[in-house]
């Protein structure tokens, strides 16, 4: 069902955890459909210096969360804002069709975190 890349990120997720003094936090998801993703950012000079996640969800939810943190780390926030859920899925060599909608929200969580950073750091 899942690609090797998904299983790799699921079983060895990168950047799990919280950032103590995060300056951007975003959470998306819907517990009734089974997925909640929360992303913590440490942004300095508009660059994502650190990023961590916590996720409640299925294999795809955890793997996409892990992947999005890898993709975002070191990017500017503008670069990170153009990351899409689709791009995350592609970086994982694809997701099963029924996971494309409800479990593929990691980029949204990242964007929420960036938005939160922008709102709280004006």
């Amino acid at each position: 069902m899942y690609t090797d890349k998904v299983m790799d990120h699921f079983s060895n997720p990168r950047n799990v955890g919280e950032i103590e003094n995060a300056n951007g936090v975003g959470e998306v998801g819907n517990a009734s459909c089974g997925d909640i993703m929360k992303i913590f950012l440490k942004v300095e000079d508009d660059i994502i210096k650190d990023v961590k996640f916590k996720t409640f969800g299925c294999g795809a939810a955890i793997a996409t969360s892990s992947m999005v943190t890898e993709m975002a780390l070191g990017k500017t926030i503008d670069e990170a804002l153009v990351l899409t859920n689709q791009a995350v899925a592609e970086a994982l060599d694809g997701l099963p069709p029924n996971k494309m909608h409800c479990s593929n929200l990691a980029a949204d969580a990242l964007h929420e975190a960036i938005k939160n950073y922008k709102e709280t750091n004006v």
Partner: protein
Amino acid sequence: MKQIYMDNNATTPVKPEVLEAMLPFFREQFGNPSSVHWAGRMVSGAVETAREQVAALINCSPAEVVFISCGSEGDNFAIKGTADALKEKGNHIITTTVEHPAILETCEHLEKNGYDVTYLKVDRDGMLDLTELEAAITDQTILISIMWANNETGNLFPIEEIGRIAKKYKVRFHTDAVQAVGKVPVDVQQANVDLAVISGHKIGAAKGVGAIYIRRGTRMTRFMHGGHQERNRRAGTHNVAGIVGLGVACELALKNLQKNYAYVRNLRDKLEAGIKELVPEIKLNGHPDADLRLPNTLNVSFAYIEGESLLLNFDMKGIAASSGSACTSGSLEPSHVMGAMCVDVVLAHSSTRFSLGANNTEADVDFVLQELPPMVQRLREMSPLYNREQPLTCDECRVVRRVSQ
């Protein structure tokens, strides 16, 4: 890697004796039992022997057994066949909120076609209130359809009492016995059941074969129209090999019923006690009295984590179980059974079913008890719901779409 299969309510391997019995019917004995020549004659007796074996397991007459293709077909047949045959008599059906989709979707379909359906509620333990059942019966009621045992929780409904109520009000009674047969005694006479469905692949026969008990004199409209097979009750060329295997599986089930009950129940009880001891913040789904559940089934929710990710962790260790999570059901909602029992939606997503079989060993249980606690802990550490200051309430989480710290 060791493979530990604890998903016997989903399906079971074909028993060696069953496969052995089936094989000749793919090869030399390939005939159509409706044929008059040697090829047909060779196999028609085998179909009748299987009918006797099925009848013996559920205590009915062989003439009351009709072979079908699966449990779902039996449920469709029981409900649609009754609804059509008794449509002059009434249009009301009573069932429960925790039935298998084969019952629920069939009832919903009938609702679109002029039938009224009462879905009886269950309590937090998943049990029915029989006074509600009695109160629901009207002069329009043509069918009560209540499962013998629930596939997710293992809960056993009081089928004999329901049978007495059905008899008292002269309402036809169907029971989906797919999960019950082979695990607990199923006696259709004693339970006063008019229709009962069993499915081969849940008891060590092949997938794609099942049987429905139709009490003598029960007027049914055919579900599968066509040829004259099964004394005009079910069309389609007999699945001879499958039927022969179902017969043997029923014979084995009858022979080993008591022994397997004790054996499997002991393993399940050990697993249940072990999980309760080793993992904090869990919830048992189903009736707390283990006598009121199938001997093989344990359903627990592990707070803060989602079921599919737990199953994947299991899988990496060779452990096969199942989950009520939406992610594993093909639908967007978690298990309707958990919903009916008012299990919190997050807990429903983490509901995990272990369904054991006679193939499991104490070592299997020990292995699960060794692997499970660290897996749960690891997933909890990863979960934004764990150790949250303000716990997510259900109302809230249904629509979470951005929460800042």
